């Protein structure tokens, strides 16, 4: 295992020079350039083909331009933007209260993390601290969401590699957790639940039993995943030694999350730069040894177990109190008060039409999403809308590692690599 002290933070001079020239794994040509590409006699067999954006294993609308020699990938380039809807621009026209409805649509497999990053950045600018219960509810929701995200990965990864049954199993377990999220937030996805100042609503009656039901049934199901996949020779053949990457490359390329940890480099913001109350719960940061597709698969599977461990501790430690800050500047009045008080009605109306003002300033806040570091850079001009709202999507940066993993791999391995990088295109394109 690589520890923090003994890592080499760069690729060395040779590695860096190689990133630029023709031997670089990245195929830096435009579409017109790809058409006009000619090869000398030695490389005459090479051709450039497209994988995606409609290919089912490219997870949405990822398109890969592959330069192939027979069935071997020589160079490649991820082409993105098919899902670009200008969400950062939209963020400048929405108030801070409306902001979470926008960012929640970025990483649609783990929407609560975008909401959390947005809310933490807003709260940092407002210089407010949310009540304890809100902090712990946020942690509970994020860990449940991490479970759904990794279960979704198990489903899609299984299907990509050819274990098609996994599609059903992964989806089934995910739906059970999503049902709980729906009970708490009102929606399966795109919750708009974590908001500046706290969360949208308190946990419903009986939430504890529902969480316990999941914690009691899921471990058995995960053991089934192990039986079905982890020890199976075909599964191992497809994943082990495929798409290998090392820690130095990950650091140089800005790669975070399970991809970085699969190389044996233990870095998890929850442990290393704690936010919320992660310093009050026990959990392990899981690392791999080889940085291959199998390590990435195994880390995600076991992170579900770690999340369950955290959720169990949250159940024990969930404090009582308010689920949102009682600051009239940012918190709308309770629904019941609106019926009896004119001032409450005006207050409600003003918060939802004008929004609340946030002091001038700029801040960057990061959280550990299932895919890596998810950051929010926010600039306020003192008004009720962000002057600039930028989300650092982990998938967007992680995509750059694909050409490096794919060089000299087979096309079938490219599918496994795309799958275990686990990009969510909503977050890549924003």
């Amino acid at each position, binding site marked *: 295992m690589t520890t923090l002290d003994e890592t080499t933070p760069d690729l060395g001079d040779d590695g860096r020079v190689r990133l630029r020239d023709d031997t670089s794994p990245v195929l830096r040509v435009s579409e017109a350039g790809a058409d006009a590409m000619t090869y000398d006699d030695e490389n005459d067999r090479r051709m450039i083909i497209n994988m995606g954006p409609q290919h089912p294993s490219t997870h949405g609308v990822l398109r890969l331009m592959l330069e192939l020699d027979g069935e071997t990938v020589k160079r490649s380039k991820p082409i993105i*933007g098919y899902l670009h809807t200008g969400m950062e621009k939209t963020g400048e026209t929405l108030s801070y209260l409306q902001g979470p409805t926008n960012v929640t649509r970025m990483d649609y497999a783990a929407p609560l993390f975008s909401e959390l990053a947005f809310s933490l950045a807003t709260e940092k600018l407002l210089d407010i601290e949310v009540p304890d219960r809100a902090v712990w509810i946020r942690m509970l929701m994020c860990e449940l969401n991490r479970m759904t995200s990794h279960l979704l990965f198990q489903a899609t990864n299984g299907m990509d590699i050819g274990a098609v049954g996994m599609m059903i199993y992964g989806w089934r377990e995910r739906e059970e957790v999503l049902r709980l999220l729906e009970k708490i937030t009102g929606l399966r996805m795109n919750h708009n639940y974590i908001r500046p100042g706290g969360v949208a609503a308190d946990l419903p009656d009986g939430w504890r039993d529902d969480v316990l039901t999941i914690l009691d049934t899921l471990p058995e199901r995960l053991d089934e995943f192990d039986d079905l996949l982890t020890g199976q020779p075909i599964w191992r053949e497809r994943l082990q030694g495929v798409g290998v990457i090392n820690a130095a490359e990950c650091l140089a390329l800005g790669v975070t999350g399970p991809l970085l940890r699969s190389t044996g480099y233990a870095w998890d913001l929850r442990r290393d730069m704690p936010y919320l109350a992660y310093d009050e719960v026990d959990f392990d940061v899981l690392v791999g040894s080889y940085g291959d597709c199998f390590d990435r698969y195994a880390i995600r599977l076991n992170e579900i177990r770690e999340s369950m461990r955290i959720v169990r501790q949250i159940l024990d430690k969930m404090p009582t109190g308010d689920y949102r800050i009682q600051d009239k500047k940012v918190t709308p009045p309770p629904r019941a008060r609106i019926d009896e008080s004119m001032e409450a009605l005006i207050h409600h109306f003003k918060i939802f039409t004008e929004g609340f003002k946030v002091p*001038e300033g700029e801040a*960057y806040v990061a959280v550990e999403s299932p895919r890596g570091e998810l950051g929010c850079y926010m600039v306020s001009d003192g008004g009720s809308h962000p002057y600039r709202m930028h989300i650092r999507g982990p998938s967007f940066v992680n995509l750059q590692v694909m050409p490096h993993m794919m060089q000299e791999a087979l096309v079938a391995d490219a599918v496994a690599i795309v799958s275990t990088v686990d990009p969510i295109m909503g977050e890549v394109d924003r």
Partner: protein
Amino acid sequence: MSDVPGEPDTDEATVDTEPVVEIETRYGAPVTRSLDQLVLHPSVESYIETVQALHSDGFVMCIDLTAVDYLTRPKRDLPHGVAAERFEIVASFISHAARERVRLRVQVAVDNPVVASLFDIYPGTEALERETYDMFGIVFDGHPDMTRILMPEDWEGHPLRKDFAVGAIPVQFKNAPGPR
């Protein structure tokens, strides 16, 4: 050589009438703190040296690189001696060993929006710099592939600039008839 006592003092006094603002510098750039977060303000010229110094000091990763267009808000909190320009490059770095983050804010003039690329120090900025070019029109000198990344190749304009209007336009396809 008149030996008038006190003359040097008066000279010094005239020099000292300028208000002296003590600016802390680190890695060759003025330092401010924004809500407990460390922010450096290098100039466009000293940007690369500052980043190089950060890299050799254990900041192993360039986490984020983006820009802000301050067209409609020219006044903002900058340290003494740093002149505000329309664009600002914002880059975040992280040191895993020190568990520390640092942010760089570089002022970039609109009439010459060119900044050195960090690709040779942090190859992971390739996509981030392409996105910043695509959205703001800031060119990164020395970048291996300075092309659009999110918008279509033949798109005109840079959407995150403040003078790029928000509005509904038809879905864009490459080589399709233009919207306007």
